[in-house]
Each structure stands twice: as structure tokens, then as C-alpha cells.
């Protein structure tokens, strides 16, 4: 049978050679298909939005009646609801029009890069305090999204890597399947590759490699498997700490195993199999801490540099602050995102009611963590979710630095 299978595939190969190059065709077809399809949302959010509109209308009508009836005879009373910890606060007014001025901050000032809310072809940047924002000159092909390095000094469009001026610094030397993970120095990235552009269904060995922006590639270690509907990915890549965290992911995105690797030698420092209870694993940017939520997401165990348990925190950890002391909690099931100090399991900040987790980003070299949340008031209208972004400090204060943007 194996001989016949080989011969059949030889015939199919010859037939498929008539197809020619398929480079870039996937992205193009996806773009064209989605451009020709109407925006679609699930029934539940539509129903919720409709109900919310009805309730809001009723509430407004009620307020109007009360205002007309009582405003002149009563002083308004502000009712304050006590909170046990700080909640979202906004001190910066997000722009309502497409930005016209260029971002004018030193190259060393960290920024967060995003798509302009009113012009998806324009890439903007904002400082971590929300005080300065402006457009970036370069564009590239944003159809696959943007993925910035920690400082926001470079970003990849998944085909090439650009600086804030739009100059191409490097090309993505990957196999076209995934970029990988920026290293914490912002000048390297870790990437998982395998022999085949299209790995077989059963998978083939993956290789962790360390790439410099000059294009120099160093294979670190063969680890994990790459398959059509599953694969290995990089959860942390640290030049500073000389380590990376590689996760083996099932097709549902959960991690079934992970390895903490010494980058210089390829040595496996420690690893753990989660085959019995696959879950979403995250790591601090330096690979010192690995967070393993329970399957139900109620608790997360945090492991330290040697693999020993360092602490436990309520909720499902999605990311860490730069120094690893804070964690971002959230899930895709609708829980309100929070920021906690994991060593004593103290919630420092909770996102506004109705917000759900989208992304998080640690402030490079700083103590804040940015949390991007999706909110019902900003429904998605384009190819990427629209989010509000809060910069949360260790004391629990938060500044909303972006509103209704795509990252």
C-alpha cells in the first residue's frame, strides 16, 4: 500500500504542478472573500444590543420625564457606589478624527502602535501615559495585522519588519506560517518552523530558532511538533535572560506541553506535560514565570524560574507585567478583565462592566501593563476587533489611553 500511496502522490504532484506558485494566495483569497461578505455577528450580541437599545431608550424616556417633573424642585443627588478597588478611569480623550500630525517622540520612548480608528490604512502610535499620539509614516501591508516589539520601535506586518518611519528593517524569514515572538530586547525574535510549508496532518518535528533583524538565523533546538491544525509556538523569548518558552498547542489552542529552553545552548531547563488537562498557558516576557490556569479558569498556578510553584491567583492569567509581578486576568467567555498582584492574590484593577479581554502588553522596562478590552459600545466594523486600551499601574490606577481602535 505504501508503494501505491507514493505513486498516487507522484501523479497528484505532477497534476498540482500546473497550479504554479501559491505564495501569498491564502491572504489574498481571504481578503477578497471577507471583502465580498457582509459583516456578520452572532445572534446573541445582536439581541443584547437590541435589548440594550430598548432599555436605554426606556431609561432615557424615564429620565426625561423625571427631569421635567423634578428638576426645578429638587437638587440632584449623586449616588456613589463604593468599590473595593480602583476601576477604570479616563484622563485622556481619545481622538475622534483621524490623526494628522506625525508622532513626535524620541525613538527610545516606548509607544503602543494601533490602526487609526477612522482610517484603517493609517498606523498611529500613542505613548504609555496617553499624552502624545500621532501617525506613523510607514504603512506596509496591514491586512494581516500589526505586531509590535515591546518598545513599539519596530513592528511586523508578518511579511516584513518596519520601523516607526515605515522603513523596512528586515523581512520575516519564517516559513510564512507564523512570525513568532519578539524578544524582550526588541531586536530579535524567536520562531518555530518545520521542514514543510504545509506540515502533514500528523505533524513533523518543529525547530525553535533565534533570528536577528539582520537576518541571521540560529537553530536553537528541535522541540515540539508542527501539524496542519496544531503546532508549537513561542510564549516567551528573552535575550536578557537567555531563555524561551515553547508551547505545544492542540487544535483548540490549548497547551498540551511546554518547554523552558536555554537559548544559547538549546538545553531544556524544565518542562511539563499538560496532556491530561490542556489549558491556555502564558509566560512572563523573560520566561522566568509560567502561568497555568486550571481547566475551568478559576485558579492559576504560577511557576518560577526552576519550575517550582511560586504562587496561585484567582482567575485565568493571560499575561504578565514586565517584571512579572502583575498578571492580567481574563478569558474569552465574557469575564471582566482584571489586573492582579499574584504574590498575594490582590485584585488591583477591574475593567468596566461589559468589557471582555482582547490583548495585553507589558510596558517595556516599566511597571505598567496595558490591557485592551472589547466593549459593547464599540462594535467591530472592520477586519479586527475594536478595543479600548487602559494602562494600569501597580497601585491600581488606570488611564484609558485609546478608545475604539484596532491593534
Amino acid at each position: 500500500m505504501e508503494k501505491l500511496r507514493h505513486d498516487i502522490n507522484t501523479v497528484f504532484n505532477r497534476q498540482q504542478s500546473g497550479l504554479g506558485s501559491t505564495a501569498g494566495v491564502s491572504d489574498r483569497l481571504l481578503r477578497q472573500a471577507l471583502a465580498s461578505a457582509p459583516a456578520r455577528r452572532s445572534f446573541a450580541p445582536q439581541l443584547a444590543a437590541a435589548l440594550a437599545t430598548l432599555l436605554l431608550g426606556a431609561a432615557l424616556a424615564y429620565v426625561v420625564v423625571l427631569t421635567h417633573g423634578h428638576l426645578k424642585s429638587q437638587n440632584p443627588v449623586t449616588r456613589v457606589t463604593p468599590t473595593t478597588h480602583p476601576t477604570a478611569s479616563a484622563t485622556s480623550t481619545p481622538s475622534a478624527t483621524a490623526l494628522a500630525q506625525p508622532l513626535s517622540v524620541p525613538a527610545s520612548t516606548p509607544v503602543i502602535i494601533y490602526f487609526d480608528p477612522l482610517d484603517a490604512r493609517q498606523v498611529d502610535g500613542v505613548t504609555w501615559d496617553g499624552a502624545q499620539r500621532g501617525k506613523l509614516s510607514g504603512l506596509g501591508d496591514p491586512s494581516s495585522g500589526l505586531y509590535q516589539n515591546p518598545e513599539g520601535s519596530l513592528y511586523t506586518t508578518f511579511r516584513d519588519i518596519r520601523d516607526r518611519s515605515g522603513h523596512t528593517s528586515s523581512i520575516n524569514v519564517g516559513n510564512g506560517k507564523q512570525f513568532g515572538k519578539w524578544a524582550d530586547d526588541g531586536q530579535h525574535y524567536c520562531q518555530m518552523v518545520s521542514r514543510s510549508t504545509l506540515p502533514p496532518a500528523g505533524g513533523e518535528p518543529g525547530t525553535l530558532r533565534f533570528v536577528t533583524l539582520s537576518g541571521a538565523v540560529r537553530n536553537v533546538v528541535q522541540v515540539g511538533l508542527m501539524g496542519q491544525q496544531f503546532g508549537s509556538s513561542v510564549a516567551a523569548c528573552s535575550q536578557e535572560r537567555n531563555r524561551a518558552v515553547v508551547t505545544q498547542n492542540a487544535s483548540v489552542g490549548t497547551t498540551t506541553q511546554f518547554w523552558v529552553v536555554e537559548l544559547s545552548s538549546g538545553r531544556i531547563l524544565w518542562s511539563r506535560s499538560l496532556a491530561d488537562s490542556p489549558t491556555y498557558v502564558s509566560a512572563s516576557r523573560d520566561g522566568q514565570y509560567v502561568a497555568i490556569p486550571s481547566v475551568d479558569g478559576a485558579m492559576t498556578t504560577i511557576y518560577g524560574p526552576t519550575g517550582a510553584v511560586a504562587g496561585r491567583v484567582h482567575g485565568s492569567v493571560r499575561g504578565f507585567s514586565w517584571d512579572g509581578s502583575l498578571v492580567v486576568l481574563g478569558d474569552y467567555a465574557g469575564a471582566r478583565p482584571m489586573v492582579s498582584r499574584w504574590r498575594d492574590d490582590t485584585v488591583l484593577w477591574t475593567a468596566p462592566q461589559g468589557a471582555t479581554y482582547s490583548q495585553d502588553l507589558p510596558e517595556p522596562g516599566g511597571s505598567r501593563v496595558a490591557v485592551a478590552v472589547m466593549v459593547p459600545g464599540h462594535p467591530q466594523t472592520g477586519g479586527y476587533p475594536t478595543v479600548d486600551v487602559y494602562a494600569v499601574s501597580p497601585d491600581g490606577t488606570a488611564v484609558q489611553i485609546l478608545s475604539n481602535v484596532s491593534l
Partner: protein
Amino acid sequence: MTFPADERFRDRAVAGDEAAFAELVGPLVEPALRLAYSMVGDRSEAEDATQEALTSAWRKLGQLRPGMPVRPWFFAIVANRCRNMRRTRWFGLVRLPDVFQQAASAEPAVENLDLERAMARLPFKDRQALFLRFYLDLPVEEVAVALGTSTTAAKARIYRACHRLRPDLSEEDR
């Protein structure tokens, strides 16, 4: 055997997140294009079928039940689009064996000439089953979903096709 679908991306895609949809089906587009090309034999038509299948998948994503595998579901949509194109468009004028004779970038080895002719004579669904099983390396269970048949029927179809190509295959090769 069960097929875990990518629930995280699926849920977000169902909610209208196009990026999640791209994550979900992006890796499947190229093999889908190859499947379409194997069925229609023309690149532009194969791209049309794949693009239409993507649009259809985007619209029908809510029908993808939790736990249902994405890959064979999507390939089934692609195959249906190709079959519809063959039925409704100028493909009615194209003889299926032509599809196999269009690729001429490499001359077949002499020993494969007979096999190539034999494959061209296979019933369409048999050839499709072989392509899914051998070329795209899908497990039989996913071939069955893509073909819209039971696993047993898919397995029987693959074996029958192989037996037609190599009558001396033994029962143990099943």
C-alpha cells in the same frame, strides 16, 4: 475519534471577528485551493471556488457545531462549490480526464503513465477520496466528513479505488 475544533477562534469568529476567522481557516486555504484545482483543473476557477467557499464558510460559521472539526467542514464546502461549478458552468464541456492531462510542467515517469491513466478513469468521488486521504494526508474520519459519507463508506471508497489501480492489493492492505 473526535475532532476538537478551535473553539477559541471559532467563538470569536462566530461573533464577527474576521481576524479570528483568518486564524481559523487561514492555514486551510492553500490545501483547499489544491483540492479545488484537483477537481476543476483550472487555476482561476479553483481560486474562484476557494474564495466563494471562504465567503460561504464565513456566512455559515454559526452552523459549525462546538467540537466539530473545521478542516473537513471547510473542505466539504470547497468540494461542493467545485461540484456546483462543474454542474452549472462551462465545466460541463470539460472532460474530467483533461484535468489530469493539463499539468505538463514535468513529464511523468514511464512507470506512472499507466497509473495516471487509471486514475483519470476513476469515478470522480473515488479520485477525490484519494486526494484527501493521500495527498492532503487527512485521516479517514475527516475524509468521510469532507465527502459527506460515513467513515466506513469513505474507507471502502478508498480501498475500492486503490484496488482498481492495483488489482493485486491484498486484503491485508486495507
